[in-house]
């Protein structure tokens, strides 16, 4: 049996979907559209049917007007796939707007069941609903639900109603289908009548003690959180707290314990391998596989805490207020407040962040946001930051914080550059955002999300990172004649052979050694690989608590082994953080850009940014600390000058384009 799930955005649709399907998701493709279909199987314990019930999650929509593309997916789906039943999820506190869509769905000729969601909030808001009367007026079953779960979630009743509705004849209480829909005026006239019809029903069915058109407690909270002057500092404080807890306090505390276990495991494995085992194999298994993966997995607690906090943040509704606060600033760089949300999500993982940019209607803004979101350090980059701040800067908190601020600065400059190059400096775009109610974030959901991410992280470590490390270890052990490389002759290994040409390019940046080049390259497969590869090429296995090195000695030894000054280390860190993201994220960018030219430009921009940032950091850092520029200053300067020169040229051309456009519109 196939069921379609649809409703207004912010109605709790995704929550309901996850609640009834338990997130067993399958993917398909909408014909002709790039948005992928989300399907799930309803949990067996919610219904009595023998066969499985499949639920398809349709995109959130306010109506089925034929004039917008996303909403036509709904009508296309119904026409082509003929679902048995449609579940229309409706925010119980918002009937006047929501039922507009409902009446349209009722005209499709398919049985509809209305899930009256967030019904637990009705009492709090002083609303009383006559559900039976509503069902009668609409001509379909109406089930109260609380998608966030609990004992009276109504989910079983919902599925029972769905099963019972199958095969039934659906009549439409308001029939707009019969009327002429040739032009907008006619369409609008019909819709006005539709709204009037809805109003009549709601008047009968709903009793409100408090007028919802007046200011509420939520607005009072908004006044503070979205305050023109306090809003930004509050946001900065919130983000700082999130990172502080995950990177400086709770995270490392848990990580220390965790890393202790990993170390014991390593020692145990080391003990098992008898002396007779070939050192090559020993190295591959111990250093390459266990050591390399262990170095990365040690960061798991930090990442888990981060994701937990981010989930709480997303759940409570504060993010939309952040968009309100940031809109004022983002407008000055050619974006809207909506762009902040992908970037915040991007601090967890850039891929869902890039996907979230989909809600931005303006094409240029969307693509710019997609290009800039990866500049916010993602979860995978955390091990890299932690490694370098630990080894070179004594775990100083300012290193991590600095990276985020640099990311923000790059985003601002990048947005300005893009808006000028595309000549859209003077183009205005509209900002409208629905403000959902604040709600207390669900600890359970955040925990579920955290464990899902933890599981995925471990899988990623055990597969991709493991393979990369093993390959790197092998390439480092053998030279091109497949002989084992002698101690001290590492530069003849396969790995060195491949990485050295790239290393040349990196000399002006202060880290022109093949080991570091190799690590940066593997970073494109997964940013965690930078840590993993470094662990392998330098035979280091414990990065978190660098004082407790049983194997290599103290912290200074690690720094010496890498051969980097502080300036170079900072430069290397920036290089890895502010270049193009991992291939998977690039794939997501590609999907959202929908334009090869934009994608290529974005990647070039990201590459250039990494290079320029590293160059500036290394050269000025070296100059400040030693009074002389670093290695390769002149060649590097030429490259950087060329990059900046090209950007300046493009910006000027864009400005001319914008000026021309302005003349045309006057």
């Amino acid at each position: 049996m196939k069921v379609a799930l649809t409703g207004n955005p912010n109605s709790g649709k995704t929550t309901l979907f996850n609640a009834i399907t338990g997130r067993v998701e399958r993917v398909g493709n909408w014909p002709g559209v790039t948005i992928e279909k989300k399907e799930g199987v309803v949990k067996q314990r919610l219904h009595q049917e023998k066969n499985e019930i499949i639920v398809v999650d349709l995109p959130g929509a306010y109506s089925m007007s034929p004039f917008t593309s996303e909403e036509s997916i709904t009508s296309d789906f119904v026409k082509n796939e003929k679902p048995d039943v449609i579940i229309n999820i409706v925010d119980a506190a918002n009937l006047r707007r929501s039922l507009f869509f409902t009446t349209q769905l009722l005209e499709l000729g398919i049985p509809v069941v209305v899930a009256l969601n967030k019904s637990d909030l009705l009492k709090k808001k002083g609303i009383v609903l006559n559900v039976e009367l509503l069902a009668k007026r609409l001509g379909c079953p109406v089930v109260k639900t609380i998608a966030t779960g609990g004992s009276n979630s109504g989910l079983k009743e919902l599925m029972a109603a769905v099963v019972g509705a199958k095969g039934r004849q659906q009549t439409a209480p308001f029939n707009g289908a019969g009327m002429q829909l040739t032009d907008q005026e006619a369409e609008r006239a019909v819709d006005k009548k539709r709204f009037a019809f809805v109003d009549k029903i709601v008047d009968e069915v709903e009793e409100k003690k408090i007028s919802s058109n007046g200011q509420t407690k939520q607005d009072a909270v908004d006044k503070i959180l979205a305050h023109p002057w306090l809003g930004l500092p509050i946001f900065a404080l919130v983000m700082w707290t999130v990172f502080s807890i995950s990177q400086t306090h709770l995270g490392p505390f848990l990580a220390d314990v965790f890393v202790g276990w990993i170390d014991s495991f390593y020692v145990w494995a080391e003990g098992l391998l008898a002396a007779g085992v070939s050192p090559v194999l020993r190295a591959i298994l111990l250093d390459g596989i266990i050591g390399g993966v262990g170095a990365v997995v040690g960061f798991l607690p930090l990442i888990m805490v981060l994701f937990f906090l981010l989930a709480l943040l997303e759940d409570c509704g504060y993010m939309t207020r952040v968009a309100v606060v940031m809109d004022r600033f983002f407008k000055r760089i050619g974006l809207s407040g909506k762009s902040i949300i992908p970037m915040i999500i991007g601090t967890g993982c850039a891929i869902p962040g890039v996907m979230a940019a989909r809600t931005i209607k303006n094409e240029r803004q969307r693509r710019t946001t997609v290009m800039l979101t990866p500049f916010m350090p993602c979860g995978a980059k955390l091990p890299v930051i932690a490694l370098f701040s630990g080894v070179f800067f004594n775990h100083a908190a300012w290193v991590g914080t600095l990276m985020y601020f640099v990311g923000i600065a790059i985003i601002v400059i990048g947005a300005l550059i893009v808006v000028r190059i595309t000549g859209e400096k003077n183009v205005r775009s509209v900002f409208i955002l629905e403000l959902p109610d604040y709600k207390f974030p669900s600890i359970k959901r955040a925990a579920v999300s955290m464990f899902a991410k933890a599981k995925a992280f471990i899988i990623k470590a055990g597969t991709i990172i493991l393979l990369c490390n093993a390959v790197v270890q092998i390439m480092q052990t053998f030279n091109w004649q497949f002989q084992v490389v002698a101690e001290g002759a590492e530069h003849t290994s396969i790995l060195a052979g491949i990485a050295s040409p790239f290393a040349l390019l990196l000399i002006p940046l202060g880290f022109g050694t093949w080991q570091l080049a190799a690590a940066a390259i593997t970073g494109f497969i997964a940013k965690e690989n930078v840590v993993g590869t470094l662990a392998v090429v330098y035979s280091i296995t414990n990065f978190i608590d660098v004082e407790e090195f049983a194997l290599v000695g103290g912290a200074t030894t690690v720094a010496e082994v890498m051969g980097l000054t502080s300036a170079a280390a900072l430069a290397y860190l920036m290089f890895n953080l502010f270049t193009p993201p991992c291939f998977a994220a690039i794939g997501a960018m590609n999907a959202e850009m929908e334009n090869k030219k934009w994608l290529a430009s974005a990647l070039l921009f990201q590459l250039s940014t990494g290079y320029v940032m590293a160059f500036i950091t290394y050269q000025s850092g070296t100059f400040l600390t030693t009074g002389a520029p670093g290695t390769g200053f002149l060649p590097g300067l030429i490259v950087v000058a060329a990059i900046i020169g090209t950007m300046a040229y493009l910006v000027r051309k864009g400005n001319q384009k914008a000026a021309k456009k302005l003349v045309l519109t006057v």
Partner: protein
Amino acid sequence: MKRNEKAAASLAEVQLNREYVIHEVRTNDEELKNFLFTLGCYEGEKVTLLSVLSGNYIISVKDARYCVDKELAEAIIV
């Protein structure tokens, strides 16, 4: 002195927390007009300006809250 109702004010200029009736949605962007329509924002419908935050306007239409920027607020004439 009686205020001339025909000298329409936009939502960016009205008093807070008072219900007004939309007179017109003045914009050249048809897609925007359609979208606003589906939210219940069109001539004859009631709208309230709840607050002004950080340069943006929080409005209430059909029991739902939205944040719109100044330009959009100026397009809604009451």
